[in-house]
């Protein structure tokens, strides 16, 4: 009951967060529909013919009736980069496309104090907001001659600063003076005043908290601009990262995946065949396979590290296990999925058992094995990155893990993009191999 209560609380929290995202989701859907309307309009304008395709009803389960619209893909990707650039103030985009950035530059505001005898006086605070890469000193200002004296402060963009403005005044806080106004507006401790360039608050202790506007753009430490990520990519591919070149990091990850996958296939395919052809093998391995299949390879990482350490052996064992069950199950269903009439036909054409194995069972199982191989490669690639996140000296996952510890978000992003591209490339390669090697897939 206690647990349920806790989980309920968590759920409320999560839903609350999601609720704040909801307007953005709605906005995104509206953008999609908007571009669709524009696209339709443009097409109708260019080619005002009646489009019979639009009369076609979507048949559920019939994938061929809906194909991917290339224009939509292009717009979708362009929009992602556009948003990325706009929210990071990318130099690749013209300035008018940027969302408002943080306030940078020099500005000033006045504050008013009131002494115990009722006199009031003003002084000016000069604020210099400097960009993250170019630290600056507090600007020099004349102290002035009144009861309240002028102050200055330098603040880095996206930061705020506390200023004890009264310390240099003629009548200080210890004398009983207090701040009563900022830029002509009355202020009490705990209040704040919004100004054109940001916000000034008065703390309960009488200190000014100066917060220059942060704008809508993301700090580079959260989301670096595309060109910063690109620059990092160039830099790291020239100079390497953590004593290894970029090619070494990626090469090690790929090496682990390929060796693990190949070993898994070498053992898994014959295992699957044995399970598909012999009830004894099937009975022997079914419980093992059915138990191991739902265990995510990631859950094996700690055990593998305990047994084999963090070296190559451990990782390859892990990937071997990740590929093994998938390949075994693929080969098993490839064998048992053979249409009985094909086997019968081969028998009545005079084929021996062995010839049927060689000319019917094996080729018939290849499409399923290829499907399994595609899945296994995907799982292996994901698993290797995760394993490297946990412990590794080289590798794509290690690179982004270390970078995140140093808050090098640009390297993290670069790594994630490279991991995605390589994963995508692997899948393309597998699909190509499938087309070339088993062209009869799905044509039975």
């Amino acid at each position, binding site marked *: 009951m206690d647990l349920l209560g806790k989980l309920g609380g968590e759920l409320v929290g999560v839903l609350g967060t999601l609720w704040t995202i909801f307007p953005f989701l709605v906005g995104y859907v509206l953008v999609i529909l908007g571009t669709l309307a524009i696209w339709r309009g443009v097409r109708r304008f260019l080619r005002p013919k009646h489009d019979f395709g639009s009369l076609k009803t979507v048949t559920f389960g019939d994938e061929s009736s809906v194909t991917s619209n290339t224009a939509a893909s292009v717009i979708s990707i362009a929009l992602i980069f556009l948003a990325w650039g706009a929210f990071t103030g990318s130099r690749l985009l013209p300035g008018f496309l940027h969302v408002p950035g943080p306030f940078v530059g020099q500005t000033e505001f006045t504050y008013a104090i009131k002494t115990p005898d009722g006199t009031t006086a003003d002084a000016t605070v000069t604020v210099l907001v400097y960009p993250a890469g170019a630290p600056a000193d507090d600007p020099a200002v004349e102290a002035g001659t009144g009861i309240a004296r002028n102050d200055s402060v330098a603040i880095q963009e996206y930061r705020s600063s506390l200023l004890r403005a009264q310390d240099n005044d003629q009548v200080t806080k210890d004398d009983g003076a207090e701040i009563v106004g900022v830029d002509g507006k009355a202020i009490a401790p705990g209040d704040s005043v919004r100004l054109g360039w940001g916000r000034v608050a008065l703390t309960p202790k009488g200190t000014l908290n100066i917060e220059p506007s942060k704008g809508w753009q993301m700090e580079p430490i959260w989301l670096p601009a595309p060109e910063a990520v690109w620059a990092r990519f160039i830099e790291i591919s020239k100079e390497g990262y953590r004593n290894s070149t970029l090619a070494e990091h990626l090469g090690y990850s790929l090496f682990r995946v390929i060796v693990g996958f190949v070993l898994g296939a070498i053992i898994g395919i014959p295992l699957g065949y044995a399970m598909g052809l012999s009830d004894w093998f099937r009975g022997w391995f079914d419980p093992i396979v059915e138990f191991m299949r739902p265990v995510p390879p990631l859950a094996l990482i700690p055990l593998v590290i305990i047994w084999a350490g963090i070296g190559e052996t451990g990782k390859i064992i892990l990937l071997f296990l990740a590929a093994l069950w998938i390949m075994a199950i693929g080969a098993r269903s490839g064998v048992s999925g053979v249409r009985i*009439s094909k086997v019968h036909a081969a028998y009545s*054409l005079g084929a021996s058992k062995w010839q049927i194995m060689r000319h019917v069972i094996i080729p018939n199982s290849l499409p399923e094995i290829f499907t399994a191989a595609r899945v296994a490669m995907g799982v292996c690639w994901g698993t290797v990155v995760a394993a490297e996140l946990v412990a590794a000296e080289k590798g794509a996952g290690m690179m982004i893990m270390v970078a995140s510890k140093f808050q090098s978000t640009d390297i993290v992003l670069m790594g994630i993009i490279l991991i995605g591209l390589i994963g995508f490339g692997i899948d393309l390669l597998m699909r190509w191999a499938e087309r070339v090697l088993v062209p009869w897939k799905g044509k*039975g």
Partner: protein
Amino acid sequence: MTGLTIDHLSMRFDLPNGQAVQALKDVSLDLKAGELMSVLGPSGCGKTTLLNIVAGFLAPTDGKVILNGKTVRGPGAERGMVFQQGALFEWMSVRENVGFGPSMKGMNKAKKKEIVDHLLDVVGLRDFKEKAVYELSGGMQQRVALARCLANDPDVILMDEPLGALDALTREKMQGLVLKLWKETGKTIILITHSVEEALLLGERLVVMAPRPGRIHREYNLPFAEMGVNKDLREVKKHPDFAKTREEILSMIWDMEEEIMGRTEKA
């Protein structure tokens, strides 16, 4: 002792739930070499089971099949089989499919090529030799299946609804082809169908089976197959006896189906 003897065959399937299905009971038939027999009957009456036993894929619970004096004890190249669809090897080209039997026997390449080329000519697929089978239409695929079966030069050809999945026009053409091949090759053929018309057109002998238990209900000797060889089958269908026999068999099968329905309703 040439010919095929089906001798008091019975087949009972024991189901996992403890019940048993009597798929065939005491079926006996004698086929002379070169005879063409069609088998007709409502679905579930044991036609496929009968064919599978003759082919050697199933061992009967009782009785035996004797071909050319020898009892059948398993599948063999002297009994070729043509299935409804999907029994071609889609990883092989048309040529490789047709050459499958000879390849398995280890026949030399030149001789195999001669056989394959000849048969592809006979079924009219010479130009599709190197195509993948899944690129062909359903009718063409069945021609490949016929050619593949003939390439092995079997004594008996067993066909399980070979034209069942084809459209009406293609089907009619294929019926003509079956008759032509039968006459040219002189093979003994057993052809299962559930089209009464097809059974009449393609059977010198026609066996009507009845279900539960599967047994032979009636046998006919018919002149239409002989009449139809290399002729327009539509002319054959206009023969007054054709229509008469068709009506007779149709009502017989109707009665059987009705009986089945009645029985299941009561059960």
